[in-house]
């Protein structure tokens, strides 16, 4: 895509300011119809942010979840972050102002970005560690910013980023608690992920714990 002329840019601003919605970009429209998903089968990415080799139960749970979703005719990819090389974001903004859409680091985050943006639904999975999802998962999330645009927009009276792509996946959060996890922790995590969803043009469809049978979580994704 080339440079939009000034009028087009001005129209963008006006459209963004007035409608404060992504309708123009077809995002909500594209993702709103669960029926469409069920007809054609979804592309689903499960991002496993479990840093502990010893916690095989969590990895096993995600394999069961992937198999259940596969049985429902969805195309599922599990990304095991523990085995991937993802350098923490340095905040250089090359992906916004130098090589738009592309990070300077050529590591496994490239594959993750491609998978993320081509998915209809993404499950972020992590044990709760010190009251939040793992650093392993957070480092991966930070490396997704090439997928959005640096420009700002008005979203329901708050300033957020503009999308770069036409469509972004819906999101679900799958956690396993630590012994100290309480209701307040879950509220904090949920609120932060809801906020993050605004900037990645998504919607947080659920926050579930791995105590819930994988089949039920698969149903929740299937019926979203």
């Amino acid at each position, binding site marked *: *895509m*080339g*440079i*939009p002329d000034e009028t087009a840019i001005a129209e963008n*601003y006006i459209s*963004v*300011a007035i409608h404060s919605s992504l309708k123009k970009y077809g995002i909500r429209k594209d993702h709103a119809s669960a029926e469409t998903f069920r007809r054609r089968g979804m592309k689903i990415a499960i991002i496993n942010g479990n840093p502990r080799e010893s916690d095989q139960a969590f990895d096993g749970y995600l394999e069961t979840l992937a198999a259940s979703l596969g049985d429902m005719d969805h195309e599922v990819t599990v990304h095991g972050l523990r085995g991937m090389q993802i350098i*923490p*974001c*340095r*905040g*250089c903004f090359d992906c*916004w*102002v*130098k*090589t*738009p*859409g*592309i990070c300077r680091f050529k590591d496994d985050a490239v594959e993750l*970005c*491609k998978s993320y*943006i*081509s998915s209809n639904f993404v499950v972020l999975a992590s044990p709760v*560690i*010190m*009251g*939040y999802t*793992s*650093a*392993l*998962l*957070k*480092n*991966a*999330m*930070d490396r997704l910013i*090439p*997928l959005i*645009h*640096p*420009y*700002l*927009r*008005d979203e329901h*009276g*708050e*300033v*957020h980023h503009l999308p*770069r*792509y036409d469509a972004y996946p819906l999101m679900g959060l799958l956690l396993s608690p630590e012994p*100290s996890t309480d209701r307040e*922790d879950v509220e*904090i995590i949920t*609120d*932060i*992920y809801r*906020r*993050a969803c605004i*900037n*990645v043009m998504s919607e947080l469809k659920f926050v579930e714990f791995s105590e819930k049978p994988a089949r039920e979580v698969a149903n929740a994704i299937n019926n979203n």
Partner: protein
Amino acid sequence: MRLTIINGSPRGEASNTGALFSHFIRGFEETSGNRAEVLYIIKNLKTLNVLVDAFRTAEAVLLGFPLYVDTMPGSFKMFLEALEPLAGRDNNPPMGFLIQNGFPETYHNRFAARYMEKFAKRMGCRCFGSILKGGCEGLSIQPAFLTEKYFTYLYEIGKAFGERGVLDERLLEKLAQPEHLTSENIAQVVPFVNKALWDSQLEANGALEKNFDRPYQP
């Protein structure tokens, strides 16, 4: 007081977080008997134990970071996880936070602050408060009348902390303005930031025509 400041910006010394800290420190060290030492997460990513040891022996700790995807950067979370063995220990230092973000409004920081304050509780640390500020991307290119105002508040917050050992609520509130913007403000600010902050850098890099590229379009 010997204050241990941990700068969690992935940009290290040349960070907006660092600029805010420097003015806080200026005020703090002007008061008698107070010294601050600054450590960087980014310089210790492979030696997090250095930071954990600094935390263990600190008199008081001030942790700062920029908002990344609505909360702490992943590298900062690595540090928080490295502190887990010290959770609930006797004599953990009192801690406070400085969180800044690039959007014009401070409101975006409130959620990460709530997390950090719960984190302090989890560690068994007394929390002396959070310094929150929006509008901090590209501080070096912002008009001086704006940045001087922020920097003066930070200087005063640092000074008051040196004198009384607390973060002055009234000053924190002033610094945090604007907490939200009106839709009229947003309509003015957004095109300005897009042009002055982003287009100027894209242009300098000869990348303006690639601005809307979608390299991973499925």
